């Protein structure tokens, strides 16, 4: 049996396993959304939460960079009504209110290959992954040297090394990859995983969104 772990459930799972995730909570109405946002601190993002949607960008259920309570209140109403009219039959649990991520977008993934077994993937988000397929792979488990090399062998390595605004500590990314490798070793039921995006900046690394396929 396969089970998908999405949205808040998946983020909570990672947080419990010791991973840094962007602060978030589920809001069921616009007032709750505005309250949560104030608690988390602006800017925030809203994402519809539905067990029937894997890729939120496909359904247009995301609003980014909301700067105050009023905007959050409005945005909640807009995306929920749009979701309900565009996707009749899909369930709506509420809306995730999440702290806006900042820095470079990374993608970290796990898959199980019939021959290789568990495999770890790493890349830079946006055009690097979409257009250039600029990603690196290693068999799980990896060690610190593997993690470092996964980062260094990307064509986009120079982008990581010298962002215009700030300096990113690359060992933070390496450590993160090592932690994911260990997580997959601990939880053999994890079949596939997309951590996309993960934000990295001079302040550190945090997971914004994650999807996990679990074998039960």
């Amino acid at each position, binding site marked *: 049996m396969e089970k998908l772990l999405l949205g808040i459930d998946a983020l909570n799972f990672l947080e419990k396993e010791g991973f840094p995730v962007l602060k978030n909570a589920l809001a069921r109405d616009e007032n709750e959304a505005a309250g949560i946002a104030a608690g988390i601190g602006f800017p925030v993002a809203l994402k519809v939460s539905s067990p029937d949607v894997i*890729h939120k960008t496909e359904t247009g259920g995301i609003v980014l960079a909301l700067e105050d309570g009023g905007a959050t209140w409005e945005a909640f109403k807009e995306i929920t009504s749009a979701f309900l009219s565009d996707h009749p039959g899909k369930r709506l649990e509420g809306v995730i209110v999440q702290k806006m991520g900042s820095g470079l977008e990374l*993608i970290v*993934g*796990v*898959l199980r*290959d019939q021959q290789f077994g568990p495999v770890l993937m790493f890349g830079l988000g946006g055009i690097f992954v979409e257009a250039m397929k600029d990603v690196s792979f*290693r068999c799980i488990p990896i060690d610190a040297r593997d993690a470092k090399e996964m980062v260094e062998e990307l064509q986009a390595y120079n982008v990581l090394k010298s962002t215009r605004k700030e300096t990113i500590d690359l060992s933070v990314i390496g450590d993160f990859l090592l932690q994911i490798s260990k997580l997959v070793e601990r939880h053999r039921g994890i079949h596939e*995983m997309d951590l996309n995006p993960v934000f990295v900046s001079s302040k550190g690394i945090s997971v914004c969104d994650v999807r996990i396929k679990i074998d039960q």
Partner: protein
Amino acid sequence: MMNEKLKWLFSPGSVAVIGASDSFDKLGYHVMKSLVKGRYRGAIYPVNPKAEKLWGIRTYPSLKDIPGEVDLAVIVVPAPSVPGTLQECGQKMVKGVVLITAGYKEIEDSQGETLEGEIKEIAGRYEIPIIGPNTFGFVNMTDGVNASFTYEFSLIKKGGVTLISQSGGFCHLCGFLAMEERMGMAKLMSLGNRVNVDFPEALRHFIEEDDATRVIALYIEGLDEPRGLLEMARSMGGKKPIIAYKAGKSEKGDSASRFHTGSLAGKYEIWKGALRQARILEVTSAEELIDTAKVLDVCAPIKGNRIAVLSGQAGPGMIAADALEDAGLKLAGFTTTTQEKINELLPPVAIRTNPVDMGPAWYSPKAMLDILKVTLEDEGIDGVIFIAMFASANLEVTKTMEGLMKDIEPFKKPVVACFTAPAGVWDEEIKRMDGEKGVAIIHTPERAAKAMGNLWKMQLIMR
């Protein structure tokens, strides 16, 4: 047990050829030819119930009639009689088998797979390592054992490169390229269907047990369980350099995934990462495999990536300089002392900075060699690419250079040379210089730069 037996298999004191023949259209003919004409020094026992003498050698009706011990049995009888033959090998306590016969797992008829299962079972019972089935065999250049159906492999120069291949055809491609490119080899083998000697076993053997092997080249098509090979290579911890050519790049990943990761993961992309993780350097063509293996075998280790390019003609030197960057190398800057010495050796009628145009020294091979020595002396230079194209006026260049080459060995820095001439002109000198005194001779400036770059990449991988 298997490990001990593999030593006997690859360096046998005696070989039985089961299915030996003197008729050209039989594989048994060609295996006999390989052993006899390949000057195998141990005892050869042809086995064939219909003959008393083959290739002038006493022939036995069956394995058990052979009086002495048999270390290696090469089997070329048809597939259905192989299980019985293997049984006899077990009873005769044969130490290893090369099973050339095809018609097993690789064929469409499911009978093939059943027969292969039977073979595996018998081999397991008697603990006999088997190369094959469905292989051309192996050639041991070090000890002069050609246990294959292609005699001409015996003409490959002796050296330190061992090729472990998943394809016999690739061995033929590389074996003959090796002759053309003067690459010295230790062993050449195709694993065939890998009934009980697979990549991990062969790799372990040539790294741990075979001193003649200094560099290992792998040719991989696809494996059901690649982790065995990868973990073995990694556990060898950089004892010997391993390079690999992976074919079948278009193979799709097996995940029909809606996940991003799954859709990005082609098989080849995973292989690339896995090879790197196993400390194996990937090459992407047969010629890159040959050039890289040759340089790794004959050149001194490289300590950095700063390269001097010295060329008898400006153009090819510029090409090499361009190719350096892509290969992960840098054009070195000369120290003042080095530059002064070069200036003394070369009149100021050409470019004397790196890449150096040695055109004005054309008529003086000694001056060219002195420039080479000066750059090798420079501590800011880790390796030299040395180029000379033939022209009627410099006919004698290689002859003089050959005599002077010995002077460059003490520097213990890699020198990759590129001498291009019409057929028959510099051939003999090139043949004698290539692979000696730490010099590798490679066909073109681009390939020379790439090979030098791979020497550096391997250094990084192995550290």
